Structures are given as structure tokens and as C-alpha cells.
């Protein structure tokens, strides 16, 4: 590949256009259809690395992979009871969020968040909801809610 930066710009432009089209089509409902974006990468690269079945180890393993693969420059998190507050710096897809925001669209999907959700849901069988994506000071602040279990009506 002669110009890897061009390829990333090209990919991010396409991602922005597809996300914008999806927003235009579904509005605030679009976010609920995006939770599997990143699943192929999760299955091939992430899942084989997930050994331990506790929340912190799983989240750390996902974050380590994201950094190792250069998808993010840095990522950290804080647990606050059932809330998982994740800070992502230097994400490959940051340009997509910037363009959406410049067009008045609040970011509504995040691949690093989806990978964490996929890991916790599969390995711990705990439902997770991505509650918020904010871009502040050049970093993405993600808020996830981790629930104890899937409800039953038994």
C-alpha cells in the first residue's frame, strides 16, 4: 500500500457517509442497530485473547488489543458501580465523529465500545448498554451501563 494515510481517510470518509445516511434514515433509532459493528474483528482477533471471566480482566484485554493494533493511541476506564466510564484517545475513527458533530449529529456508534460490550455480553452473559458518546478535548468519553443479568419473568 503506497499511502496508508490516504486509505484511512478514504475508509473514514466512507464510514462517515454511511453513518450519516443511517442517521438520516433512522434518526435516534439508528444507534440501536449498530451494536454489532466490530463483531467480525471481535470474533477473529479479540475473542481468542479473552481467557478470564471477570469484568476488569476482559475490559483490560480489549483495551490492550485496541492499543496493540493501533486502533487507539490510549484508552483507560473507571468503574463506578454499574457504570463503566471509558476514555479513548487517538482513535483511528475520530475523524468520523468530528465530521458527524460538524453536521450537527451526535456520535451514536463506537467500535471500541462495541468490542467491550461484545466481550462482556458473551463472556459474562451480562447485558451492557452504551449510554453516551461524548467528544471532549480531543478524546472520546464513553459511558456504558453493565447490568447484572438478563431479566426473566420467572
Amino acid at each position, binding site marked *: 500500500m503506497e499511502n496508508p494515510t490516504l486509505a484511512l481517510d478514504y475508509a473514514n470518509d466512507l464510514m462517515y457517509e454511511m453513518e450519516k445516511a443511517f442517521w438520516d434514515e433512522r434518526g435516534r*433509532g439508528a444507534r*440501536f*442497530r*449498530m*451494536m*454489532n459493528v466490530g463483531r467480525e474483528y471481535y470474533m477473529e482477533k479479540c475473542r481468542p485473547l479473552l481467557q478470564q471471566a471477570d469484568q476488569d480482566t476482559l475490559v483490560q484485554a480489549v483495551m490492550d488489543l485496541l492499543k496493540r493494533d493501533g486502533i487507539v493511541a490510549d484508552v483507560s476506564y473507571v468503574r463506578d458501580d454499574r*457504570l463503566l466510564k471509558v476514555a479513548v484517545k487517538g482513535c483511528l475513527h475520530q475523524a468520523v465523529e468530528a465530521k458527524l458533530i460538524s453536521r450537527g449529529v451526535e456520535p451514536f456508534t463506537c467500535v471500541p465500545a462495541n468490542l467491550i460490550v461484545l466481550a462482556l*455480553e458473551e463472556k459474562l452473559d451480562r*447485558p451492557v*448498554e*452504551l*449510554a*453516551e458518546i461524548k467528544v471532549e478535548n480531543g478524546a472520546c468519553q464513553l*459511558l456504558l*451501563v453493565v*447490568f447484572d443479568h*438478563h*431479566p*426473566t*419473568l*420467572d
Partner: protein
Amino acid sequence: MSETYTLVDATLKVIQDRRSIREYTAEPVSEKDLEMILEAARLAPSGENAQPWRYVVVRDAATRKKLGALAGGGSGRRFTAEFVTKKMQERFSSLEDEAKKKAAFEKLTSGKVSAFLADAPVCLVACGKKDVWDMPFDTSAAIENILLMVTALNLGACWVIAPCIDIRDEERLKGLLGIPEGFKAVSIISIGHPVRPHRPRPRLAVKELVFDEKWGERYFKE
């Protein structure tokens, strides 16, 4: 005493009387009524007359319980997200009764707002064939026909998207009912005999909704 309506008045009355009903008696929905409801659905318009709708009739109590849990789980997650980001508090800011507010928050964040599917005598799962141009619009037209026929039959129904709106829940629903890849699970319509009548929800005045020739100039003047 039976009332007599013109066709126009009867049609308008059915539209006006439609409510979203979430509480049902134990009385089952008769097969004859269900056939009428499905006939109304069958006659809906669709792009290219593609008729992409298919339905799964669920009466089994154990399956309905799973549908209720799926719906409640999805709603609970989404409303909890609204709560932790303070959006729910903003939405209810004009409600002054703190006890009512707390009860509303609990009903929403717990998912109980959608779990009533488990108690509906019939859950009608509306599915749409993906390989057509207009599936979401076609299936929505059919669902509205369902709701109106339900109303005409003196039954009650609720259009519930909670078990399908999140792609994860839709996948679980499709797995539960064996819905194939080529079809989307669009919504579930719960049907039964209403426990009680319901007041209508507020509606915007028609003058707020319509423009003359192009956007901006109101069609209906003051």
C-alpha cells in the same frame, strides 16, 4: 341499542377509538377474530405489491414469557441509559409530583413498561422480507390495519417494538422463533381483551402538521 354509522363515520370512529392497550383480561382471542385481524393485515398496500409481511402467532405461555422478558430487558437497558445520562429527568421535568415521577422512572428503567407482552393472550410477531424495496413501510401499513381491525372487534392491542429495536434483541427473537435470515423481525403486536377503557393521548393540532405547496407556509390558517 346498536348505533348506525355511515361508512365514513364508522371508519373515523375506529381510527379515533384506537388505543395502545397493555392490560388484558384472561379471555382468549377467538380464532374467528384472529382471522379477521390477519385478513386486514393481508389487504394492506405494499410497494410493487410485494406483500413482504409474514406473521408468527404466539399463544404459548412459556414463549410469551420469553418475549416479555426480551422486551422488558431491552426497554430497561435503553431507559436506564436515558436515566444515567439525565435525559429522562429532563423529559419529566414538568411533572411536579415526585412520587409519580419516581414511579415512572422505576417502570421505565426496570423494563416493566414493556414486559406486559407476557400477559397478552396473543403476541403477533410481524416479520418483513428484506429483499424488497419498501419493507419497513409495507409492514407498518399492515400493522396499522391490524390495530384498526382490533379496535373494530372491541379488542385491544399495542404495537411493541421493544423486543426488536436493538439488533441484539432482534437476533435473540429471531433465534427463539426460527425466523430465517431473509426476514426481519419488525415488531410484536400484543392482542387481547382490554381490562378497561383508556383516554386518548394528546395530539398536535392538524394546523401544526401541514404546509401549503412547500415547507413553511401553513396549509391551515389560524
